[in-house]
């Protein structure tokens, strides 16, 4: 006798612990296998792009914090780079170094969160997650010391950074930089060879190279497929051309490669911070820019390599005190377009792992 089965539509999310916020997947299932997947988002839409049009240029910076809230520094940086390009402002040398140090520390802390939550999704509950958060805490302490908050930093300013670092910052940073590589190696030993972790991630959710390019993926998701693309190298912004670092890439483009690329990137970031620490000059940290600037009529696009990928801001000015239009290129959203190709054919429990390997932030996707 032939058993007749029929597809079953399951709404995963928006309130689901492994959707990292309020993401909803309309999954059509045949038993446990995924037949079709339709992402539904917009639950966290706050209209950041529209709000930016009625705020002064400096007032948009706190809004950019709230996009990718685990990586506020790089969002700040992308926006101020766009406005600086538009208004042709030159940034003091010390501020450039501080920006690089902050964005690299931010990359480490964001990758720690990504790896932590990814291991949570793949079934090793909370032990690696809390280890990662412990290391992240050391970086967050430094951010707190510099800009007064632990999550929404609002540190970069048009023409520099908001204020100089306190005296105890550099010694503390040296300690952290000395301390972290050992811990990262430890977590490498903890996870990278674990047979259960390998079974859940190796060969799961493969993103083909062509698809990755076609969907406009960037960041670790793109690099895991073996494409060596990093804006810090390919289109150096700020002063990244002065540092020596490698671009870690994966081979297969599966979940394991995405995890491993992130782990290796943290080591590269530490290398950059070490070099910046040696070179950092003294001097002013902010160019003489008025609080309410009026850039000339025109448009500019500023982009940085954020922890999830290319964060870009396209700012259009009509000569007023507020941007005429501010478009945000959200890397998580672009990467997520590959979700359908990666998850169809896999089981529901693999879907969670695949989705977790993107390390998305809903604040950025819905904007």
């Amino acid at each position, binding site marked *: 006798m032939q058993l007749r089965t029929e597809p079953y539509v399951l709404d995963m999310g928006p309130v689901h612990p492994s959707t990292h916020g309020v993401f909803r997947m309309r999954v059509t299932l045949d038993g446990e296998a995924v037949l079709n997947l339709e992402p539904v988002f917009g639950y966290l839409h706050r209209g950041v792009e529209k709000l930016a049009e009625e705020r002064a240029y400096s007032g948009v910076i706190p809004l950019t914090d709230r996009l990718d809230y685990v990586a506020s520094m790089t969002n700040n940086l992308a926006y101020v780079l766009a406005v600086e390009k538009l208004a042709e402002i030159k940034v003091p040398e010390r501020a450039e170094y501080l920006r690089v140090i902050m964005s690299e520390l931010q990359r480490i802390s964001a990758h720690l969160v990504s790896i932590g939550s990814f291991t949570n999704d793949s079934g090793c509950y909370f032990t690696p997650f809390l280890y990662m958060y412990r290391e992240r805490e050391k970086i967050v*302490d430094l951010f707190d*010391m510099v800009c007064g908050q632990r999550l929404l930093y609002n540190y970069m300013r048009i023409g520099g950074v908001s*204020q100089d670092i306190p005296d105890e910052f550099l010694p503390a940073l040296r300690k*952290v930089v000395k301390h972290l590589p050992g811990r990262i190696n430890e977590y490498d*030993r903890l996870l990278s060879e674990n*047979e259960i*972790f390998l079974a859940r991630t190796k060969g799961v959710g493969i993103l083909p190279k062509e698809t990755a390019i076609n969907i406009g993926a960037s960041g670790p998701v793109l690099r895991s497929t073996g494409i060596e693309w990093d804006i810090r190298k390919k289109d150096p912004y700020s002063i990244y051309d002065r540092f020596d670092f490698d671009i870690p890439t994966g081979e297969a483009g599966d979940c394991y490669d995405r995890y491993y690329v992130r782990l290796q990137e943290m080591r590269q970031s530490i290398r950059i911070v070490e070099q910046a620490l040696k070179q950092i000059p003294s001097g002013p940290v902010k160019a003489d820019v008025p609080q*309410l600037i009026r850039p000339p009529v025109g448009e500019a696009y500023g982009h940085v390599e954020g922890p999830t990928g290319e964060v870009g801001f396209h700012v259009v000015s009509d000569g007023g005190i507020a941007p005429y239009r501010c478009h945000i290129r959200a890397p998580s959203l672009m990467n997520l377009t590959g979700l359908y190709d990666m998850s169809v054919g896999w089981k529901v429990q693999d879907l969670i792992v695949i989705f977790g390997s993107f390390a998305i932030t809903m604040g950025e996707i819905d904007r």
Partner: protein
Amino acid sequence: MKFERYGRGIAKGMVVTMINLLRPRVVTQYPEQKLTISQRTRGNELVWDKDKCTGCGTCSKTCPQGVIRIETSVGDENKYFVESFEVDTGYCISCGLCVEACPYDALFMGYAYELGRYRRGDLVLTRDEMASEERIRSGYNRPEVAETLPRQTLLIEREGD
């Protein structure tokens, strides 16, 4: 997937877990034990110096949320008299731009946390509340104030190997 290496990876990972078991604990029991916060804490509670303030309204202009309401009238000696100064901290995003913008250093972020209130109306800070002597000023963008505050506790100093 087969267990080709007979669970050696798991054993290796367990060693790391054992090392971490012996490490000192990093968590603190919050309401009883408190860590010292950053000298530049951007607490929501604004502190206002009414002697330095001239009522220029720059803070109100720079506030991205538009929550600072300031009303002035012409006072004696060619100065403005600040009649009302209100900040609805329910809408405040603690960005600190008002403190940075103040040309007379009359506005400070507050060195405080635990900002919960029982009623929404209590969130609106008034002129006298902000000028109260009890409020501790934070060193955000005010290096001279930061020097007077205790040093922040850092996890790297508590844990560092």
